[in-house]
């Protein structure tokens, strides 16, 4: 079930109201049943994968508490192998097989294994990692084994974060699920506000960006540099609003029922370095890899070359986690390389900053760092979004092409054609000139462009205000009538722009992982 679907508009209030009406001892049953229903709205039979994972990890948890030494390690290995085995089979088998087949063809070998006709279970990477974190934490002694099978199942399947995270840790969630939650006005309404804001990001901004991204990325060879650059920038906004929008809805819907999920995004595009970006983007996954891969590899408490290796390999695997394709591997490798290079060149940048006296202009330095980080991240998104490696390489190699013709055409449009419109010549000509790459522009597409720009401005203003302080808290200081108008306006905007012209709900990008 999609958060941005009509079905969820019914599902959520029904589940929430029933939740608060039920005595505490029955609530886990309701949430588990609702989570099963939520998951089975996609492909019902894949619930069996979750059933196997949960059963194995339930007994693994009990075993990990019971055994010590080698036996304990064997139990952990069994759990890891089961979880990773599921992931490997459903997500990576075809990828590995196709690459082996290509290799065999290259060296002229007969390779008889065919790819499997399987559809990737929705959110597999998310719930596998969440389940894994349970057994690892029990192994490390930081979490007691859950004796109630239903609660462990709920920990893995809790519907707000089942299919796209945040990837939770048992210490944060399990005790909250056990605790009796009461209806608290402030908590419930704040949760609903987060959900509304998430919907705004998804429906009003991310889904609008699709209009600029898909036509170009679906067939990049038909476009030159300006369109490729513009579509890539639009994708950077789309993926942020799509994924952080999902996380906001997940956090909000869990908060309504008294469960506080971990923060998954913290204004990532305001980051001043790639390492800071990863402390702000998909935080639950970054910390997962940090805790369960990077630190066990030695983290940064090793010689520099080994440290660089640890970082690079962590990001390479993170790329592969996102998708079984070389484009994702390269995306991960790019981020790994950015980080390794930033470590190796840190003294150089510090000296350069002193030499250019940039260190005396902290605001300018922050602006340059933030913009550089944003462009590096956006460049890497090309590999994340492109349909194939050849498409990605085409885009990268053509980013600089066609600018002369574009600028000449834009200038021509601006001075020759734009000012013929009498109602608002300035705006009309600017829109025509900037978006000449998307010709033919229609009356309506011009309006959609302007409305999208307005939505983006609103998004940036809210993001900046949130970055500077607790916006919800500030809003609470305002008079009641003003707050009501703000909330009603937000909902009205979502409702007005809540349906795309194609009448197709855009699924959340991270569902595919």
């Amino acid at each position, binding site marked *: 079930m999609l958060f941005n679907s009509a079905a969820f508009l019914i599902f959520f209030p029904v589940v929430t109201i029933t939740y608060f009406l039920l005595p505490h001892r029955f609530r886990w049953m309701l949430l588990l049943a609702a989570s099963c229903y939520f998951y089975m709205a996609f492909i019902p039979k894949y619930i069996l994968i979750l059933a196997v994972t949960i059963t194995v990890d339930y007994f693994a948890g009990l075993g990990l508490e019971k055994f010590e030494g080698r036996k304990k390690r064997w139990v952990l290995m069994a759990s890891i192998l089961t979880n990773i085995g599921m992931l490997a089979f459903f997500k990576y088998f075809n990828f590995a097989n196709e690459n082996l087949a290509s290799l065999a063809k290259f060296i002229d070998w007969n390779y008889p294994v065919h790819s499997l006709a399987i559809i990737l279970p929705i959110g597999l990477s998310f719930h596998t990692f969440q389940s894994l974190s349970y057994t690892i934490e029990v192994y490390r002694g930081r979490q007691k084994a859950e004796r109630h099978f239903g609660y462990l199942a709920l920990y893995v399947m809790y519907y707000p974060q089942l299919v796209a995270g945040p990837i939770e840790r048992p210490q944060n969630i399990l005790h909250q699920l056990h605790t009796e939650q009461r*209806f608290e*006005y402030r908590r419930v309404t704040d949760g609903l506000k987060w959900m509304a804001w998430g919907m705004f990001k998804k429906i009003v901004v991310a889904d609008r960006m699709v209009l600029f991204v898909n036509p170009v990325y679906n067939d990049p060879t038909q476009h030159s540099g300006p369109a490729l650059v513009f579509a890539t920038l639009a994708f950077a906004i789309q993926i942020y609003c799509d994924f952080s929008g999902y996380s906001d809805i997940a956090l909000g819907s869990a908060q309504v029922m008294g469960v506080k999920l971990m923060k998954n995004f913290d204004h990532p595009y305001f980051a001043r370095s790639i390492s800071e970006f990863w402390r702000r983007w998909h935080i639950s996954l970054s910390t997962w890899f940090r805790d369960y891969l990077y630190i066990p590899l030695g983290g940064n408490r090793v010689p520099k070359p080994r440290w660089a290796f640890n970082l690079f390999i962590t990001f390479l695997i993170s790329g592969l986690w996102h998708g079984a394709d070389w484009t994702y591997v390269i995306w991960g490798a790019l981020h790994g390389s950015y980080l390794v290079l930033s470590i190796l060149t840190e003294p150089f940048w510090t000296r350069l900053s002193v030499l250019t006296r940039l260190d005396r202009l902290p605001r300018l330095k922050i602006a340059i760092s933030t913009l550089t980080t944003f462009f590096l991240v956006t460049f890497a998104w090309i590999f994340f979004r492109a349909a194939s490696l050849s498409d990605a390489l085409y885009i990268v190699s053509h980013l600089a092409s066609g600018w002369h013709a574009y600028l000449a055409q834009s200038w021509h449009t601006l001075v020759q054609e734009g000012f013929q419109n009498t109602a608002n010549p300035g705006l009309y000509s600017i829109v025509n000139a900037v978006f000449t790459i998307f010709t033919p522009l229609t009356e309506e597409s011009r*309006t959609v462009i*302007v409305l999208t720009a307005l939505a983006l401005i609103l998004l940036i203003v809210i993001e900046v205000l949130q970055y500077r302080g607790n916006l919800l808290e500030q809003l609470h200081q305002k008079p009641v009538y003003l707050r009501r108008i703000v909330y*009603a306006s937000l*909902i009205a905007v979502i*409702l007005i722009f809540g349906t795309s*012209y194609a009448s197709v709900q855009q699924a959340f990008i991270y569902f595919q992982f």
Partner: protein
Amino acid sequence: MPADVRAFFVSTVQVILLTAAMITITFLGIKPDPDHYFAGSLLHTRLLETTASPRIILAGGSNVSFGIDAELMQRKLGIPVINDGLHAGLGLAPLRELEEYIRDGDVIIISLEYNLFAYQDVLNGDPTFLSDWIEYSPRRIQYLSKPWKEAPGIYAIMLQRKVNRQVNTVLFGGSLNEVRDIFVGTKYDLNGDFIGHLQETSMNRRKIPATPYPVLGLQDDIFVFLENFNRIAHEKGATVYFEAPASRQSNCKATGQAQMADFFKTFAERSSIPILTPLDEVCLPNKYFFDTEYHLNAQGRKLRTERLIENWIKVMAALK
């Protein structure tokens, strides 16, 4: 009731009411665009309501509104003729509306674009076109194939289109009608014919691609619908005929003579509605077309109408 629950209930009701008020004001405050090509559908409905029977009603997409001269037919045949053609994107919804206005003695000549016969969603039509069409007459929501299921989506699109149109007017001036210089709702004659294009030359319009007509993979749904439509018309004392849309020579060539013939054969086999158009009259030289493979210019429209009149007279003579 606990204080927190009561406070939540009160604030939720307040926010819902405020939101509903905002949406309602927006929805009702932005009126339908009088310049829109679909504004002509109000004239069509009025003609269907007020023109006395017996009469000839021409129904279908824009191949009818652009390509048949009801006024000329009326003059030559001496009975009232209404051009009820509008847009193929509306699917079969206008025919559902027409069912309501059929009276004893009426003759209905349906001319549906070939694309509709291969269009999988023919029963529903395009939601954007439908929302524009319904905006002029909200009761048309009942003519959707599944009104209860489709209505929320249609109203959502309508609301969004209204806002876009209003924003467009504020920002740039004018409506969203893409080529409003010609395709405007005021350019219909008293018989419901669209006449906005008659003074234009085809040369000014975009090049028409010579793509084949999709006359393969015909959908069952449309034949079932037409059979049902024919039955209802017969029950009301009316007669239904099918007129094949005039086809551009280049597109006919791309489609192939054999496939066009196969379409006629299939239609005759699967429908009890007689076809008025002889196969050899379907394809017309490119010079008779205006801006699409279905829209005729003034000369093409005259030729097609005269042939239709002749064919009609022949059918009437044969019946006698």
